[in-house]
C-alpha cells in the first residue's frame, strides 16, 4: 500500500511537472475562451449585416407586401427600365433586384417575376420573397372563394398538441432529448478523458520500457502495483487538469462577458421568446421555460453525479488498463496504432449510438443493449440516466445488471491486461502480434 502511494505520487508529479502538460493546462482555457469570443464576434458580424433589395414593380399588385426586417430592407424603383434598374442596383452595391413585370393577373405576374443578384442568392432571402408571393396568391384565391380580408387574417391560427404521461404529469416536448443531451455531455466527458489520459498512461509505460528502468522498479514492486499506480497517478493528474480547465475557463468567460458585454446568448433567447410569443397562442412562453427549468431541476442530480462517478471510474480503469497493456507490449509509440483502433471503436460506437438512438428512444432495445454491454455502458447508460431510475426511466434491473457486468469485465480485463503488462514490459526489440499477446497470457 505504501509503495502504491509512492508510485502514484511519482507518476502524478512527473505528469504535473511536465512542461507541455503545464502549458496545455493554462493555454487550453485561453484557447477555448478565444474560440467562444471568435464565434460570438462572427455571429454578431453576420447579424449586423443588412441586405438591401431593390424592387422594380410594374404591376398593379404588391403595393406594401415587402416590409423591411432586421436583415433585409427594401428600396423601390419607379419608372425606370429593367436594365437601368439592374445597373444602378449593381453600381450601388445592393444585394439584388426583384423585378415584378406588368401582367394581367396575379398568377401571370408571379410567374414572370425575377430576382437578379450578383451571385447565387441566400436561401433565406429567397424564402422571404417566395413566402410573400405565396401568401398573396393564397389570399387572392380565398378572396375569390368568398373569404374576406378580415376573415383571412384570422385563419392563421396555430395548433400544438398537449402531452401528458399516463400518471397525469405534464410531459414537455423535447425534454427527453434535453435530458439525453445532459447525459451525453457526461458520456462525452468520459470518452475524452479516456482517450487523452489513457494515451498518457500508455506513453508513460513506453517511456519506462525505452529508458530501461522497468526492470529496476519491477524488482522492488509487483508489476500490478506499478500498473495500478501509473493509472491512478495519471488520472489524478488528469482530474487536476480538467478541474483547472473548468474553473479557469468559466472564470475567464465570466470576465469576458462582463468586460466586453458580449451577450449573444441572451439576445438569442430574447429573440426566440419574442417569436414564440408572437406565433403561439399557447400559455406564455416564459411560463413554458419555467416548466422546462423545473423539469430539469427535477432530475436527481445527486444520483446522476454518483452514477457518473461510478461509471467514470470503472470505464476509465478498464480502458486505461488496456492502454497500459498496449504500452507494455510495444517498444515505441508508432507500433501502437494497430492496437489502439480496437479500443477507440467501442468508444466511438457508444457516442454515435448514443446520439442517434438514445436521443430518439432512450429506452428502446438498442439503447438498452448498448447500456448493458460493458465497453459502451459507461457512456450510453449515462445518456439514459437523466430520465431517472424506475418508472418512466431506466428500470432498476438494467442499472444493476450494467454495473455488475462492468465490474466483472473490469476484474477480467484488468487481470488480462496485468498479465500482458507483466510479460510485455520485459520484452524488448520486437513488435508483438495478437497471437503473441495471446501466448503471453499463458506465461
Amino acid at each position, binding site marked *: 500500500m505504501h509503495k502504491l502511494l509512492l508510485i502514484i505520487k511519482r507518476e502524478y508529479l512527473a505528469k504535473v511537472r511536465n512542461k507541455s502538460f503545464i502549458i496545455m493546462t493554462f493555454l487550453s482555457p485561453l484557447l477555448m475562451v478565444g474560440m467562444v469570443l471568435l464565434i460570438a464576434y462572427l455571429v454578431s458580424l453576420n447579424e449586423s449585416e443588412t441586405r438591401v433589395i431593390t424592387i422594380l414593380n410594374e404591376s398593379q399588385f404588391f403595393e406594401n407586401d415587402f416590409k423591411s426586417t432586421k436583415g433585409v430592407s427594401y428600396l423601390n424603383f419607379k419608372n425606370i427600365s429593367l436594365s437601368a434598374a439592374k445597373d444602378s442596383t449593381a453600381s450601388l452595391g445592393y444585394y439584388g433586384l426583384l423585378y415584378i413585370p406588368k401582367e394581367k393577373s396575379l398568377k401571370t405576374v408571379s410567374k414572370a417575376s425575377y430576382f437578379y443578384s450578383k451571385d447565387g442568392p441566400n436561401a433565406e432571402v429567397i424564402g422571404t420573397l417566395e413566402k410573400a408571393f405565396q401568401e398573396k396568391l393564397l389570399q387572392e384565391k380565398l378572396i375569390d372563394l368568398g373569404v374576406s380580408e378580415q376573415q383571412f387574417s384570422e385563419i392563421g391560427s396555430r395548433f400544438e398538441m398537449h402531452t401528458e404521461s399516463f400518471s397525469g404529469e405534464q410531459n414537455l416536448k423535447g425534454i427527453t432529448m434535453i435530458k439525453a443531451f445532459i447525459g451525453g455531455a457526461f458520456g462525452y466527458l468520459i470518452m475524452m478523458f479516456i482517450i487523452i489520459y489513457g494515451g498518457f498512461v500508455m506513453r508513460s509505460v513506453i*517511456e519506462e520500457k525505452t529508458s530501461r528502468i522497468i526492470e529496476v522498479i519491477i524488482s522492488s514492486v509487483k508489476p500490478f502495483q506499478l500498473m495500478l499506480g501509473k493509472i491512478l497517478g495519471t488520472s489524478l493528474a488528469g482530474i487536476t487538469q480538467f478541474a483547472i480547465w473548468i474553473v479557469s475557463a468559466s472564470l475567464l468567460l465570466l470576465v469576458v462577458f462582463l468586460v466586453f458585454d458580449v451577450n449573444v446568448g441572451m439576445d438569442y433567447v430574447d429573440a426566440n421568446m419574442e417569436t414564440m410569443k408572437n406565433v403561439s397562442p399557447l400559455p406564455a412562453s416564459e411560463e413554458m421555460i419555467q416548466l422546462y427549468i423545473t423539469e430539469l431541476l427535477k432530475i436527481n442530480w445527486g444520483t446522476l453525479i454518483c452514477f457518473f462517478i461510478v461509471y467514470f471510474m470503472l470505464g476509465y480503469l478498464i480502458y486505461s488498463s488496456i492502454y497500459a497493456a498496449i504500452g507494455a507490449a510495444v517498444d515505441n509509440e508508432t507500433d501502437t496504432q494497430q492496437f489502439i483502433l480496437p479500443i477507440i471503436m467501442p468508444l466511438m460506437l457508444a457516442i454515435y449510438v448514443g446520439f442517434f438512438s438514445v436521443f430518439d428512444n432512450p429506452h428502446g432495445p438498442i439503447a438498452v443493449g448498448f447500456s448493458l454491454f460493458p465497453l459502451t455502458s459507461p457512456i450510453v447508460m449515462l445518456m439514459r440516466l437523466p430520465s431517472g431510475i424506475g418508472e418512466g426511466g431506466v428500470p432498476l434491473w438494467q442499472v444493476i445488471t450494467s454495473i455488475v457486468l462492468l465490474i466483472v469485465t473490469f476484474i477480467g480485463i484488468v487481470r488480462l491486461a496485468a498479465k500482458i503488462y507483466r510479460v510485455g514490459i520485459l520484452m524488448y526489440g520486437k513488435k508483438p502480434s495478437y497471437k503473441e499477446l495471446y501466448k503471453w497470457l499463458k506465461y
Partner: protein
Amino acid sequence: MSTILVAKEVTKQFGEHTALNNVSLEIPKNSIYGLLGPNGAGKTTLIRIINQITYPDKGAIFFEGEPLQPHHIAKIGYLPEERGLYKGMKVGEQCLYLAQLKGLSKTDAKQRLKYWFDKLDIGDWWNRKVQELSKGMAQKIQFIVTVLHQPKLLIFDEPFSGFDPINANIIKEEILLLKEEGASIIFSTHRMESVEELCEHIALIHKSEKILDGKLSDIKKSFKKNIFEMTLGTDNADFVNQELQAKFQILSSSYCTIEKELNFTILLPQNDSGEFFTYIASKARINRFVEQIPTVSDIFIQTIENKNNNA
C-alpha cells in the same frame, strides 16, 4: 558451508520454449558466485525468478532456508543488465524514490545516499537531471541504488558494461568491499577475466541446463590435465629433445639458439613425476617449470563443446 540462496530443481517454460530445465544451485553466504553461460542460456530468467519478477513452473527457491516470499525483496539488491533511469527526473529525487520502493524510510535513504554520493565523489549531481549525465555516470547512480538498502544478497548482471577501466575498477573494489562486509553476491557476466579475479564459486548454464558448478579452485583442479611447461638450459638440445621424445609424451617443443634454451610442453602420467625429474635433473638445468592451469574461459568453451558433441 551455509547458504544464502538455494534453487531446487527449478523449471521455467515460456510457451514451447524451456528457459530453465531442472536447475539446482546453492549459493554460499559471504562469497562471490559467478553465473556463467552463453547468451540465451537462461541466466536472466533464473535471476528474474530469484527477484520474483517471474515465477518457476516447477521447483522452489529458498532464501536463508525459507521459501522465497515477497518480503525478501528488501533483502535483495539487483542490478539488471537492461538498466536505466527516468530521464526527466532529478538524480537525488530518483534515488530517494527507488530507495523508498525498496522499503527504506526517507530519512534513512537520504543519509545513506549522502554517504555514497560522497564516497563516489558525485555529491554535486544531486539536483541534476539524469538526461544530463553520461552513461558511466548513470551507471554509478544505478550501482548506488542497488546497494543502498544494504541487501544480504546482491545480484549484478554485467555490472561493468558501460564503465571505463578506471570506474570499472572503482566498482570492482566496492563489490569486494561489500563482500568483506558480509554480503553474498551473484555475478553474471561474459567477461571471463573478471570471473577469474572475483569469483570463488561458479555455475555454468547452457541451453537451459546447469552443466557445471562448484568451487572455482576445485573445478580448475578437475580440469587440469597434468600438462606442464618446461624450459631447460642445455648445450646439447637436439640430443635431449630426441631422448625426451622417445621416453615421454612431449606435446610440443622448440629450441631457442640465442638463449640456448629448450622449451617444451609435456603430459606427465598421473601421480608419477618422479621418474621424469630424476631423468631430467641429470641431463639439463631446469630454468622454468609450470603446470598448465585452465582459464575459466578454457573451461567454459571446453565444457560447452563437450556438451554439444555429446548431444
